[in-house]
């Protein structure tokens, strides 16, 4: 589904991703984990053209999408939920969802998609007229994910969805991610909570200093080197 070749990217003249190759297969959850500063978020931003790309290629369904304008990537079926949720706190839950739906012109389709979202996220229906600012952290994260799902993506990029969440909220968010994937949406997830991410992922890449240090399936957790270096506390 997505294939990255020899990618080098960063911010201004600071190179963060230093020649990275990886593949994310359609229908799978792909986890990207690694220590702070390894370039995990920058990798997702590179796909979404939110940082400087110096060289390399990013193929999505055989098409090189490198440096396509961010607003065009939605039309390719890619959605991105950035770190820190970024919901519109001055708007209600419903207005936030409508913001996600404005790629569609058809009002009926927008309403249908919002109703679909309410079926998948009943808590958002309950709170649809509340300002997003009044939601808990976990609910805001669900809203951010729901808002991106309203665009019917085939590939969902999630940057640290568990950031700052309570264990209970985190569990709920990860459960939703699995449900979304089961409905056919491919997911690439960048996570600090390595154990949780590996558990739900079909494929995991470990990023170190802007390059892939290791990749594998769930068995990667048992690798003693990985256990010591990256998952010290688990």
């Amino acid at each position, binding site marked *: 589904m997505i294939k990255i070749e020899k990618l080098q990217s960063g911010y201004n003249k600071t190179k963060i991703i230093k020649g990275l190759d990886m593949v994310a297969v359609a229908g799978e959850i792909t986890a990207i984990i690694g220590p702070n500063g390894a370039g995990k978020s920058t990798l997702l931003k590179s796909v979404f053209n*939110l940082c400087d790309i110096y060289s390399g290629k990013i193929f999505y369904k055989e098409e090189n999408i490198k440096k396509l304008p961010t607003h065009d990537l939605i*039309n390719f079926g890619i959605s991105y939920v*950035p770190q820190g949720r*970024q919901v*519109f706190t*001055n*708007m209600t839950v419903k207005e936030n969802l409508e*913001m996600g739906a*404005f790629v569609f012109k058809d009002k009926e389709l927008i309403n249908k998609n919002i109703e679909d979202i309410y079926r998948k996220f009943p808590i958002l229906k309950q709170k649809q007229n509340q300002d997003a600012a009044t939601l808990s952290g976990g609910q805001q994260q669900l809203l951010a994910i729901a808002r991106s799902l309203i665009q019917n993506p085939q590939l969902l990029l999630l940057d640290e969805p568990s950031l700052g969440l309570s264990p209970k909220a985190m569990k709920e968010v990860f459960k939703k991610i699995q449900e979304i994937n089961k409905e056919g949406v491919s997911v690439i997830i960048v996570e600090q909570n390595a154990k949780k991410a590996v558990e739900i992922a079909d494929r995991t890449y470990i990023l170190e200093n802007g390059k892939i240090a290791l990749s594998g399936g769930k068995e990667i957790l048992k690798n003693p080197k990985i256990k010591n270096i990256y998952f010290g506390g688990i």
Partner: protein
Amino acid sequence: MLSAYIIHLLILIGIYLILCLSLQLALGYTGLLNLGHIAFYAIGAYTSALLTLSGVPFIVSFLMAGIVSALFGYLLAFSTNKLKGDYLALATLGFTFVIYAIALNWTDLTNGALGLAGIPKPDLGILQIKSNAFYLFFVSITAVFSYLIINKIVKSPFGKVLEAIRDDELAVRILGKNTFKIKNYSLAVSAFFAGIAGSLYAHYITFIDPSSFGFMQIIPILSIVIIGGIASLRGTVLATFVLVLLPEPLRFIGFPSSVVGPVRQIIYALMLLLILMYRPKGFYGKVSLE
């Protein structure tokens, strides 16, 4: 009958209202810290004055004032698209200086510091607006239409997107909107109404010179928008009345004119300070200045 003085004040309120509502669209709703709004006002005033002085009918000049200002607004937004906050404020402030310098130095066109005199009162074809009472009626109609149009824009889905850009531009971009283009449109529409206000000013005073459009003129406009409240049109209306009328009693106290100006600025500054301290959202603002 309204006295000439009251009519004069109401005309000024009408012109200021259009100017402030248009700034509210760019600043309050889109989050563009545009300190160059006076430049659009100037462009509108000069465009309308120059066209009518060269024989173009008023109604055409009036609309051209808005259109030419909108073009400049679009160009300014296009060239400063990647700037935000303080940087955008400085760049747009610089634009005011550029327009001021052009008005002052391109004497063949603008008559420089001597200004343009004898700007005709509006002639709408079937009727001529000679009296100030009639001019007040014309300004009021224009202000009401401006309010309705800007209100329609901010209440529309497009207006919601503008507010979303103000709150979090990145979040809007990742949802599939070309925020650069939207900001260009917002500033162009904002500049259009500022140009219209400029035209109304030029044809009311019948004389304009560069000093009418110095960068200091942004202070009362900005004060009105902030005191009225960010992203509030009714707040802007109320603040326009309050801030235009508030310094008026100074005229009757007997201060010399050299004192009235600075005292007026002090009043605006005091109002701003009080608002920041006790009512950070302004009269009816949706977004806190904190």
